């Protein structure tokens, strides 16, 4: 946080190197948010670039009431949502399969790895089929480590709405896994 503030001050004194450091620090998280909404790498990258340029222009209005990251994700969310809404309704993403979440590899036995792979692909598929807003809520909560309050300020949803949505989304994922487990058991029987 303090490092961010220092970099912002240096940027406003004319140092583009300081802003470059901010971009490098947050580009993956901003890109993940825009990608989750737009589900197209090219468009998501353009939206992420717009996000940083908008943030650069508005640095003077950043009042430090929230974390810089939260303020930045708020710009990313609005930029991506605006792009998403301005899309023609029939347009299909060419690389939707790349927009699924990447899950970190953990050390596990081959059998566990197969099981984890199965769980991952199920969750990835489920997230890929979710509404952009819902998948982004999960991304903000789990990947960008934003609190419910911060997600509320980023998305404009009420805190209780965010809580309810997160609860339902997790339940949906759980039900998908439960259903899959039942199918596996039935096929074995």
């Amino acid at each position, binding site marked *: 946080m303090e490092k961010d503030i220092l970099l912002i001050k240096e940027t406003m004194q004319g140092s583009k190197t300081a802003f470059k450091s901010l971009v490098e620090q947050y580009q993956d998280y901003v890109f993940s948010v825009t990608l989750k909404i737009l589900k197209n790498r090219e468009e998501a990258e353009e939206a992420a*670039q717009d996000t940083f340029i908008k943030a650069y222009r508005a640095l003077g209005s950043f009042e430090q009431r929230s974390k810089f990251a939260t303020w930045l994700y708020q710009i990313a969310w609005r930029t991506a949502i605006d792009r998403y809404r301005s899309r023609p309704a029939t347009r299909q993403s060419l690389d939707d399969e790349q927009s699924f979440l990447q899950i970190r590899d953990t050390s596990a036995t081959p059998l566990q790895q197969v099981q984890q792979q199965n769980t991952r692909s199920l969750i990835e598929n489920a997230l890929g089929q979710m509404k952009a807003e819902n998948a982004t809520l999960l991304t903000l909560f789990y990947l960008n480590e934003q609190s419910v309050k911060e997600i509320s300020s980023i998305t404009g949803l009420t805190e209780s709405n965010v809580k309810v949505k997160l609860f339902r989304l997790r339940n949906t994922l759980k039900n998908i896994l439960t259903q899959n487990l039942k199918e596996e058991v039935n096929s074995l029987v």
Partner: protein
Amino acid sequence: MELLWKYAEGNCTPDEKVAVERMIASDPLLRKELEIMLDVQSNLAGMEAQSPSLHFTQNVIDALPELYANKEIEPLVKPIWMKVFVGAMVAIFAVIISIPKSSGTSTISLPYLEEITNFINNTVSHLPSMTIQFSILILLSLAMLVFFDKMMIKRVRGLMMI
């Protein structure tokens, strides 16, 4: 169900934790539910950010407008003029101090100099505290100039930040 999620996220109070552990010990179905919840939780918590293309950072930097360019802010009063001003003040000061003592023995014979020195001499003789008044005037002028200069620099920097 909500309590089970709380447990899976690790947000339970010690009492709630004990309650959940009791429930899952007596109910195998509930235990299975919790296992799935933990599975979902760990997979979501293990998400990794995706990276944009390699040139992303440079593209952003190249596209930045020149908003906060490091423009040289020149002081209102250039240092050379400050030196001239101070020099002139010192010279006047020196003349004022030296005139009453040297007026009688002056060897300089430039035109009008005698009239000027006489005038200053008369003025000074009528105002014995003139030296002090001059000193204060000079100091105040300098202080005001420096203050005004700093204020203007601050204002220009503020405008550049908007």
